[in-house]
């Protein structure tokens, strides 16, 4: 496994993907820090409204952080298999005495390591900024649960991107994965905006089927719910009331939460995507 972590790290570093990403991430975090600083300066840190502002800032920050991370994952991996076959990189590698599924898994693990690191950097930076500037009362258990779910997001996208690259050319795969991710986010927002009153079953069903295909937005919503300490609350209509202002955060509201069973589904889906990719790559003709 170490060989693939080193291989992916070398590629990300020497092709300047990592330095550029880190520089722009610093800018993004700086902007969030600036906004939080201004918000904190405008009110009393003991004020309850600041607590809700902190929650909103954190949700927004993490929402766009996962977008940044998605770009990082997609652009670094959309041509991992097909691109390397087209360019001839794979030819000498695959003639070596290593099973293809191990190579596929190694590539996934190698990129996953760096994506998880980057995602962790984003998550903890935002959480610490919110905690420092707004003195948000975050529960350690809730933060760790949220962190665990936040780390699932790049793994899902990476598994999908790598699987797609066994079948589609780099650009085609990038477009397909970005569209799926966009669809997932869009359906999640639709559900939050139009279905908070449970009056539009069609929208809810649409969002559910999309989340089966790309569960990232559903996992994100569950992550926010956990992060804000909501797991102690029952998933009933009363939850809305108990979550107070967070249930009415418009497109980011927590009114439509995926169940714990859905989180299990996402984990199984992730494993299935990786296994499917291994099997496809094992059988693929390298012409």
């Amino acid at each position, binding site marked *: 496994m*170490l060989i693939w972590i080193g291989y992916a790290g*070398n590629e990300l570093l020497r092709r300047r993907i990592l330095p550029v990403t880190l520089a722009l991430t610093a800018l993004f975090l700086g902007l969030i820090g600036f906004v939080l600083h201004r918000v904190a300066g405008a009110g009393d840190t003991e004020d309850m409204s600041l607590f809700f502002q902190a929650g909103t800032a954190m949700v927004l920050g993490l929402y766009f952080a996962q977008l940044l991370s998605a770009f990082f994952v997609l652009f670094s991996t959309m041509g991992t298999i097909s691109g390397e076959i087209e360019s*001839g*990189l794979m*030819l*000498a590698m695959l*003639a070596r*005495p290593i099973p293809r599924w191990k190579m596929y898994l190694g590539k996934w693990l190698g990129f996953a390591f760096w994506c998880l690191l980057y995602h962790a950097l984003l998550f903890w930076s935002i959480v610490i900024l919110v905690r420092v500037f707004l003195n948000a009362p975050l529960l350690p258990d809730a933060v760790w649960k949220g962190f665990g779910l936040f780390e699932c997001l790049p793994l899902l996208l990476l598994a999908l991107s790598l699987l797609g690259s066994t079948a589609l050319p780099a650009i085609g795969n990038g477009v397909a994965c970005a569209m799926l991710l966009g669809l997932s986010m869009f359906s999640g927002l639709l559900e939050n905006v139009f279905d908070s009153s449970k009056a539009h079953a069609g929208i809810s069903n649409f969002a559910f089927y999309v989340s089966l295909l790309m569960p990232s937005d559903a996992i994100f919503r569950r992550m926010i719910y956990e992060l804000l300490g909501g797991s102690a609350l029952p998933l009933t209509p009363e939850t809305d009331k108990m979550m107070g202002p967070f249930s009415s955060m418009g497109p980011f509201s927590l009114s439509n939460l995926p169940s714990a069973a859905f989180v299990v589904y996402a984990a199984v889906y992730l494993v299935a995507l990786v296994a499917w990719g291994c099997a496809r790559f094992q059988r693929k003709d*390298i*012409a």
Partner: protein
Amino acid sequence: MILETSGLSKVYPSGVGCRDISVRVKQGTAFGLLGPNGAGKSTFVKMIVGLLKPTSGSGAVMGNPIGRTEARRHIGYLPELFRFQDWLTAREVLAFHGRLAGLSAAANRSPGQQRRIREVLSLVGLDGRGDDRVRHFSKGMQQRLGIACALLTDPELIILDEPASALDPIGRFEVRSLLQELRRQGKTIFLNTHLLEDVEALCDEVAFVYHGKLKAVGPLRDIIGSTGRWEISVGGWLPGLLEEIRGALIPGTELHVREERPDGSAVLTAVVREREQVGWINRLLSELELTLYEVRPVTENLEQWFLSLADGKEDTPC
């Protein structure tokens, strides 16, 4: 046999590929695979190294079915249109391939393996360039690195797909010399090439693939000597003897006078189907009390043979 294939076929949906290729490569020999562009040579090679799954047929490398990791363990492969990770240095590329070949991290860092990396870089003329990134290498230098990579694990079977394609004349000469040296060391070389001079200089046996089919296979000398024509130099030749001899020839054989000289000598051309028929003609000439100076098969050069097969003028049985 270090490599053996039986009816190996790969047929793409478009219909192209290669069909029913059976070859046997002996250990310690150099085998050349010839054919024009698009003949199916690279398809065949890719099946041997496990990049393509055969549609039908089978093959084995040192007794291990082709495509399996056990078979690939014995192969060093230089692909035709390849690229290395341009963000790595030449030494890092070789170290990476060492790991892919099954070396542990510790073994890959060992002085012995580092020495081997220096050795193969030196063999291909890349001394002192090991710490340069591949990005800064010319196409020819990348080709040399590819050959170094194929030799890294000191494999029993070295498969080279157009090894001299990106090299200048000096580079080609150096690669040919390197391959000759490897052959002297007892390595088995499977050469897929357009360069007939490489095949002539290096290969013991050749196979000719055309439109995906094997047209001829065998020792080079036999193949390019298999025109069926013999040249016979005789003394004591008299005009009119030709008709007398022709009357006694075995059906299917022909005899022509190519040259008559004033001193009574002549050069005859015999066209036969079997070598034994030349013996019969010799006997006839001896019975007529002619002096036999020389009897030799007429051979083509490889280029003539290649062109005649590609034109379909000749269909040598496999």
